[in-house]
């Protein structure tokens, strides 16, 4: 018997007991469907999380000023204005191999007024390198220039939410709105970023030259800033960059060896690592539960195959009498078990994909069916059949043909 024929014989034997075959395969179907669905939902969640994190910037490193102890009182992060724009410039100058782009950032806020509309929003002052650091360019119009920065020009670019709520969705480029009675001209509209996983609308923002925010809105004279944003060339350099940054800032801020940092460095990989490790842990946990159901399914197959061998004792005897070698009998039953579990696997994969997309649709979850999970599930289902089918098949192949032919 060649492979194709063995397969046909196995398929026919399974079709003779359709209901029993389906019920036996059900364990595998449910197990595989659970694995596929769980992994698809988990992967979807972690993929969308990663996309959101990378949308925040290009390998971004953020330095906050703050948390300095003054007279025994701890300030919170950003509680003290200790960072200078020059700190970041020094960093860029000293480590050109690490720092791809840099911008200082100052924050402000206010009520923007345009004709009969008004809208409270946050205002950030940055340099034109902001575009490179945050991978966030204008969708229409232009970003402000270094000349605008030097002049402290009253210009800005706005997020999509501002366009919608302040300008009623009309093209705002060239229009002028006021904040605290100071007019600002809109040069461009930023591309849409969407909502962060924490629910913050990233498009509800107005970006101005750093100098404008400092001089015009904050009326400050000191040269301090709220944050330093860096873009690092390579993800792998993140730890090195953090260390260099910390050393440099401690040196520039003249902090003695026993004094705590007066700044906090956060890198985006930390956040993304944490989120992905949580989600991958959940995925592993659920995959373990699913594999237990596969194990149970495999035992079900073994059980039914043992019953089948007993039921077909006479058939085995006859096949042996007309010339089936023990190995042919072994292969026949092994193939039967493998076909049963593999068909269960295929049905399970279909059910899992459909189930995952249905659940995702209802809950508005992102779903990502990874090809690797499909391949592994398929292989695993075939393995379960072969593993649990082996013992019954071996028993069948070791039967004595004379006893089989006499079996009632």
């Amino acid at each position, binding site marked *: *018997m*060649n492979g194709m*024929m063995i397969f046909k014989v196995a398929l*026919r034997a399974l079709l*003779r007991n359709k209901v029993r075959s389906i019920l036996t395969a059900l364990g595998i179907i449910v197990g595989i469907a659970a694995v596929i669905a769980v992994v698809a939902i988990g992967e979807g969640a972690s993929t969308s999380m990663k996309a959101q994190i990378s949308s925040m910037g290009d390998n971004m490193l953020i330095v906050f000023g703050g948390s300095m102890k003054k007279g025994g009182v701890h300030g919170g992060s950003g509680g003290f204005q200790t960072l200078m724009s020059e700190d970041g410039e020094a960093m860029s100058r000293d480590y050109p191999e690490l720092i791809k782009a840099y911008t200082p950032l100052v924050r402000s806020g206010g009520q923007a007024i345009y004709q009969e509309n008004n809208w409270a929003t946050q205002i950030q002052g940055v340099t034109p390198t902001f575009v490179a650091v945050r991978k966030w360019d204008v969708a229409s119009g232009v970003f402000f220039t270094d000349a605008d920065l030097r002049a402290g020009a009253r210009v800005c670019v706005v997020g999509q939410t501002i366009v919608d709520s302040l300008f009623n969705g009309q093209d705002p480029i060239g229009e002028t709105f006021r904040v605290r009675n100071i007019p600002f001209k809109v040069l461009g509209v930023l591309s849409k970023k969407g909502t962060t996983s924490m629910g913050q609308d990233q498009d509800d923002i107005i970006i101005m030259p750093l100098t404008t925010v400092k001089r015009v809105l904050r009326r400050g004279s000191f040269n301090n800033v709220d944050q330093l944003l860096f873009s690092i060339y390579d993800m792998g350099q993140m730890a090195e960059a953090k260390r260099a940054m910390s050393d440099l800032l401690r040196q520039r801020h003249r902090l003695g060896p026993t004094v705590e940092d007066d700044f906090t460095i956060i890198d985006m990989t930390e956040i993304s690592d944490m989120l992905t490790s949580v989600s991958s842990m959940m995925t592993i946990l659920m995959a373990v539960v699913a594999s237990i159901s596969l194990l149970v399914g495999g035992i079900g197959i073994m059980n039914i195959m043992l019953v089948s061998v007993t039921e077909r004792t*006479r*058939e085995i*005897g*006859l*096949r*042996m*009498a*007309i*010339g*089936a*070698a*023990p*190995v*042919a009998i072994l292969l026949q039953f092994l193939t039967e078990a493998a076909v049963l579990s593999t068909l269960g696997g295929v049905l399970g994969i279909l059910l899992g994909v459909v189930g995952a997309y249905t659940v995702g649709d209802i809950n508005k979850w992102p779903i990502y069916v990874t090809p690797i999970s499909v391949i592994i599930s398929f292989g695993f289902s075939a393995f379960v059949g072969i593993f649990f089918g082996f013992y019954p098949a071996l028993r069948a192949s070791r039967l004595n*043909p*004379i006893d089989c*032919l006499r079996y009632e």
Partner: protein
Amino acid sequence: MLIEIQDLKRGYNMGQEDVWALNGVTLQVEKGEFVAIMGHSGSGKSTLLNVLGCLDVPTSGRYILDGTPVAGMNRAALARVRNQKIGFVFQSFNLLSRTTARENVELPMLYNPTAPRGKALHDRAEYLLEHVGLGDRMLHTPGQLSGGQQQRVAIARALMNNPPLLLADEPTGNLDSHASQEIMHYFRKLNEQGQTIVMVTHETDIAAYAKRKIVMRDGKVLP
């Protein structure tokens, strides 16, 4: 010489003592013979047939089938001998249920690695089924056939690989007298065409169809 058996013994260990189902059988069967093995139950005739059919292995003695010594062969080798040198006809037909007559007949060739596949296989099975008079029943399953028809399917199956030896174990045991006669007539016809047949039976009128009778008692062939 097709079958050469010398001082063949087959013993079973029954608790304390050994029981000899075959106790020194010496037998020779020429090509083209039609032999009936007779004897009461427990005489050892079924054990002899099992050994002749390479289903059972003798405890001691020599067995040469069609020039090949088979006494010391392993299970896989014995399966090959059964496939190519022996056709079996059983008392209870042993057809695969819910499987068509043609597929049942084709079965031995599926285990024969040198046999043709596909259309040649179907053709051979159809030829044999026509030969046993079931040309119009090829796609019927055993459940749709009478006992005599089922046994004829079984005979067609036994002949599929064109074996030199046809072994029949009480081939008419489950048939009425009319069907029994049909089957025996067919056996005689096959034998006249040169087929060697060895048949076990305890019915004298069935044994009468054979050319030669062997009677067994207590594991030995009576002279």
